[in-house]
């Protein structure tokens, strides 16, 4: 991401011929003077930024500041400034809480299942779509498989209920056939695979976009040369396609690893009550139920902050690893 900012500095001020004074060699304090000139030149642009910047200041950085309540004995009536500073007590309570560790383990289990089963799915579908030579069929399939991404989780769960639920289509067919009905959606043991299946249903199609873009970037001549050297389709995939799209795969994996403690908050919150907290509590729902529902703001904020910090560390680590592997990763 910093690539853009770097590119920006490379562009000389001369690209903006507006304020003639900008490029002029300044007298005594050139940098300060130049900054003042730029401010005068860009006042209107800065004014345009105000609504957006206010948003970031209040709802992102204000919230970031609000995270200090993880270190407070927060009483809503007293507010942030009136509540007592208790240092790491909330964290001590959090790390001594078996429910929190249960939630962390659930989170990691779901994340691993997602990485193993969901992550390759868009790549597989993209390869299938890419191999279609009939443009109109390809377009049609793409339109259909992108659609679930735009449907809300509430609707996705409703669809799954109607198909797989106790009174759904699947059990209807099983009952009609004289077979045992299956208890899927309310079953704690089936919950984690079900969550992954729902993600696969909703986002596999959408996930193909980035892989398809990468696949079209592969140099056609490489395929041709490989084919002339006698490489069959599978070898061409292994030696041409895969190396060419490796940077994209690594990039997406790095991003996913950074978010390993986020596993579909809305999706899981919607279904948690059906299977119980033991199977379905993840860190985000832990934060929601302890903070918003039970009013234990300090503990919940500590859990949220823990999750945020781990996320930053993971992005950093995963990025480092991808550099070791010779990839560019997310940023330099």
């Amino acid at each position: 991401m910093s690539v853009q900012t770097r590119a920006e500095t490379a562009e000389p001020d001369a690209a903006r011929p507006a304020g003639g004074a900008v490029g002029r060699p300044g007298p005594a304090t050139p940098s300060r003077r130049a900054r003042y000139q730029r401010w005068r030149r860009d006042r209107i642009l800065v004014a345009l930024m105000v609504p957006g910047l206010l948003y970031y200041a209040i709802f992102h950085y204000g919230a970031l500041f609000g995270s200090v309540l993880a270190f407070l004995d927060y009483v809503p009536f007293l507010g942030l400034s009136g509540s007592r500073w208790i240092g790491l007590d909330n964290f001590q309570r959090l790390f001594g809480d078996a429910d929190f560790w249960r939630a962390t383990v659930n989170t990691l289990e779901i994340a691993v299942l997602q990485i193993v089963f969901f992550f390759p799915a868009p790549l597989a579908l993209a390869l299938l779509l890419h191999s279609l030579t009939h443009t109109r069929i390809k377009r049609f399939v793409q339109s259909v498989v992108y659609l679930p991404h735009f449907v809300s989780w509430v609707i996705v769960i409703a669809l799954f209920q109607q198909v797989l639920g106790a009174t759904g289509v699947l059990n209807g067919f099983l009952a009609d056939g004289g077979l045992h009905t299956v208890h899927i959606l309310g079953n704690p043991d089936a919950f984690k695979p079900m969550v992954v299946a729902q993600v696969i249903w909703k986002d596999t199609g959408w996930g193909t976009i980035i892989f398809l873009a990468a696949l079209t970037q592969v140099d056609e001549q490489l395929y041709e040369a490989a084919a002339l050297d006698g490489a069959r389709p599978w070898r061409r995939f292994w030696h041409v396609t895969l190396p060419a799209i490796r940077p994209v795969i690594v990039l997406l994996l790095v991003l996913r690893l950074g978010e390993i403690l986020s596993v579909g908050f809305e999706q899981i919150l919607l279904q948690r009550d059906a299977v119980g907290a033991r199977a379905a509590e993840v860190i985000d729902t832990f934060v929601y139920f302890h903070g918003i529902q039970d009013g234990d703001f300090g503990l919940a904020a500590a859990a949220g902050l823990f999750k945020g910090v781990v996320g930053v560390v993971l992005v950093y680590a995963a990025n480092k690893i991808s550099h070791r592997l010779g990839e560019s990763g997310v940023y330099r």
Partner: protein
Amino acid sequence: MKLQRRDSRRGAGRPAWQEAPHPLTSTAKAVAIVVVLALVAVPFLVVISTSLADPADVVANGGWAIWPEHPTLAAYKEILSGGIVGRATVVSLGVTVVGTALSLAATVLLAYALSRPAVFGGKPIMLVVLFTFLFPPGIIPAYLVVKETGLLNSYAALIAPVLVNTFNLVVMRGFFQSLPAELYEAARMDGASELTMLWRITIPLSRAVLAVVGLFYAVSYWNSWFNALIYIDEPARWPLQLVLRTYVLAGGQLADPSAGEAGLLSAPQTVRMAVVVLATIPIVLVYPFLQRFFVKGVLSGAIKS
């Protein structure tokens, strides 16, 4: 002539070096495609069928219908004749329209200012914005901010906390930066101000990305329910998705003890499914437009970032 027709029908077609596919491979591919299409389409079709079916048929069948044998619009008439669903639909539409307009405006202005070369404060501001990718606000601090700003229980609480989406901002800025600099220089020579250039050059040339980002915002406002759950106490002011979640899902096996009693909880399955369809319709309506701009707008911006 012949060649042209072939090209338009088959796109790139199969290059000369590629071997003709084995019939088994082609069959496997066709089967895979059909299975994928069916997996996506069947759940939607079942829900639509159930919503249009006769309630008695649905009950007799155990709660679903794969094809409405005695189709009726009764379920839709019931939910749209006022009551909580009708009100929630109005709330959702209002929040979506107002929210999308405000989000789009704030995003365009910020993206435009940050897209100008060497703008005052551009680099630090970009870092400040991108940092939020790395460290999004947690649920509790976000709730606290909404509470402290006095937005609780107002519709503004559904818009202000999600006003600008950083991904959308980055995509839009990338697109603005890709516009030819000569246009701006020429306009500058003619004495155009920044506002004039934004209005006369940037916006007319960026229709594709504006459409995509606008539709992304609209979809996310329409689909949002969690913020309403934590910020708005009164069910009468809830958006459609939250009503759906509380009264329709809760009626299935996802019983939520906090949902309380409501007419919809005991409503027949046809009515419930009609609510699901109602909540999906706007997405399906805007989808073709969204789709047309995907490749043009999103990818060009996203790949660069």
